[in-house]
């Protein structure tokens, strides 16, 4: 019995992981408990050193002082505040009127605004909910195909995952041991191409089925001519200013992503203040949600750290590495298997779990096979984006369901009943976009230049920051605050 255990403890542990996660108890605690119990078992069997867990407090301390993860609450807070300051609403309203006269105009507006919101906030929930609340009723009013309407909203909302300053990219950069700035630079072009694909899909749909997305009638477009042009410029200023403040400073190498996040969050507060929408209740809600999101995200990382401490102790990483390197087809075989694996796991896990549990196991293998880790990260990022759109468990679909009318209602303007949206329509609406996502994964594999081509130009150079600093801040501290050096311990 114990001989069998000793020989197979890593696979057994991995199997245990799947069973325990599917049980439905909070992931972070299940992971940590699994790590601890197998650790104690390993010590009993003589596989592990008794001092194994003495390293644990230091690991947790490493997570606490991780400068990269600090960006997670900043961008979350920024997204929540921006959402509430009405920026999304103004954008959708105005851009919708701009594109209104053409067929599929509202759908293009959603794609475009989705990308803009993505570049300012990086929070899927906020994008999907506001676009669902604002544009879905208008699309239904003017006879949009329901699947197209819901699909385009859910998919455009998930752009926040791949267009910087996305939380996924921060977490991936941390887990891959690369700088967030590089990750951002690598993801920007694929993110834009993806946005283009969504728009092309809408175009194709309007050509094949002109009724699916009719143009808006003139009475639905009160703004015209110069008035509209002025309004467009006006609503575009706040998001563009924030994009510059956050992404511009990061790409220019002036700010670290953490600092960019803090500046962006402050900028969002200022914007809300100017719009007179900053209330105590809004502020408290945003802090409350940010605190809870940060807690559950970091706790998954704590759980995953405990798990991997034991898993590596029993050479589980070598087992995984052996499995993956012995695949036929070398690099390509590895990439295909990893992408299939991620795609299917994305049905059950969301990206935090994927990033903290699966990515640390894959990264060393990818590195050994000579795969560029930034490219690998972006590839996984595009793939994981599907985890938000997969019926039936995609989060974007949940968010959309929560704001889409489920029963028949009377439209205020047309004064006639409009049918509600069924869950099936939301699910089928997402399918074409999941397919687009898969195509995009293939394109990123086929044309790595999309990702790596940007890296030289926009390299964030930590050494530059060091020089600008005065004597009173000694070098080792500054190094700590540069993104790559402070990532969570991984060995």
């Amino acid at each position: 019995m114990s001989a069998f255990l000793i020989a197979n403890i890593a696979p057994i542990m991995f199997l245990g992981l799947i069973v325990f996660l599917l049980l439905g108890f909070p992931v972070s605690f299940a992971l940590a408990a699994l790590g601890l119990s197998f650790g104690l078992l390993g010590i009993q069997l003589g596989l592990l050193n008794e001092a194994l867990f003495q390293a644990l407090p230091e690991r947790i301390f490493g997570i606490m002082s991780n400068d990269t993860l600090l960006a997670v609450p900043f961008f979350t807070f920024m997204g929540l505040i921006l959402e509430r300051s009405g920026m999304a609403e103004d954008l959708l309203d105005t851009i919708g009127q701009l594109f209104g006269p053409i067929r599929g105009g509202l759908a293009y507006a959603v794609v475009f605004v989705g990308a803009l919101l993505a570049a300012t906030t990086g929070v899927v929930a906020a994008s999907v909910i506001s676009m669902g609340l604002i544009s879905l009723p208008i699309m239904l009013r003017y006879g949009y195909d329901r699947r197209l309407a819901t699909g385009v909203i859910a998919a455009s909302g998930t752009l926040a995952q791949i267009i910087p300053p996305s939380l996924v990219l921060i977490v991936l950069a941390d887990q891959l041991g690369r700088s967030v700035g590089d990750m951002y630079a690598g993801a920007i072009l694929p993110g834009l191409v993806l946005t283009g694909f969504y728009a092309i899909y809408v175009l194709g749909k309007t050509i094949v089925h002109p009724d699916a997305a009719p143009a808006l009638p003139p009475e639905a477009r009160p703004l015209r001519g110069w008035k509209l042009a002025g309004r467009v410029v006006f609503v575009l200023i706040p998001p563009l200013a924030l994009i510059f403040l956050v992404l511009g400073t990061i790409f220019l190498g002036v700010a670290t992503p953490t600092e960019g996040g803090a500046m962006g969050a402050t900028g969002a507060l200022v914007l809300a203040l100017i719009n007179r929408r900053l209330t105590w209740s809004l502020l408290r809600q945003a802090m409350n949600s940010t605190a809870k999101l940060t807690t559950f995200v970091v706790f998954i990382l704590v759980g995953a750290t405990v798990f991997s401490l034991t898993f590596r102790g029993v050479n589980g990483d070598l087992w995984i590495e052996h499995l993956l390197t012995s695949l036929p087809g070398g690099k390509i075989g590895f990439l295909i298997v990893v992408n299939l694996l991620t795609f299917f796991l994305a049905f059950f896990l969301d990206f935090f779990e994927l990033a903290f549990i699966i990515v640390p196991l894959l990264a060393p293998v990818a590195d050994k096979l000579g795969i560029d880790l930034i490219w690998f990260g972006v590839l996984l990022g595009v793939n994981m984006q599907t985890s938000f759109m997969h019926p039936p468990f995609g989060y974007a679909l949940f968010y959309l369901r929560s704001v889409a009318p489920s029963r028949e209602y009377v439209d205020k303007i047309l004064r006639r009943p409009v049918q509600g949206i069924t869950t099936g329509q939301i699910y089928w609406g997402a399918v074409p976009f999941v397919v687009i996502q898969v195509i995009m994964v293939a394109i990123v594999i086929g044309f790595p230049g999309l990702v790596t081509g940007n890296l030289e130009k926009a390299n964030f150079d930590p050494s530059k920051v060091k020089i600008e600093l005065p004597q009173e801040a000694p070098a080792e501290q500054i190094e700590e605050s540069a993104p790559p050096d402070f990532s969570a311990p991984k060995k």
Partner: protein
Amino acid sequence: MNGLLALSRAIDFANERIGRLVYWCVLVMVLVSAGNATSRYALNMASNAWLELQWYLFAGVFLLCSGYTLLHNEHIRIDVVSSQLSRRAQVWIDVFGIVFFLLPMSLFIMWLSWPVFMNAWTSGEISGSAGGLIRWPARLLVPAGFFLLSAQGFSELIKRIAYLRGLIPDPVERHKDPGLDVVLEVEREGRK
């Protein structure tokens, strides 16, 4: 059981208060970090103490809010399978999880991290960077956070068992936050 339920209410109350107090650290953290970035580039000044304060606050948020997040049932679950089960079965899974996963894990980490704090306290450990902060408050956050988490786990266990025995209504429903989304929707409706 009544005494235990009273204890559970006390724990819930304490963690709710602590959570609501600690989430202000999010705002402080944003302002401190933005201030650091500004002073670094505009005034060409940087202070290690202020830089370290950023992550002290960050650590404070996620450790001290762990019990609060558990109270509001927002630690992420994979409910693909469990959502198909009856409510009672889900509660049984929670009881099992709290007894075999959460409590042993958090008590064990608390026990591991306490000596580390004591060591920092007695030795007066200070950050390795010049002008850095004293370390014991950060070291204390770990056992304190896991203590709050254990306490909340215990409270959740009491409530789950009381629910299974038919003494109280579903505890999860009561602490469900209206959440930002709902508030948002209500506000929009109001504005129209």
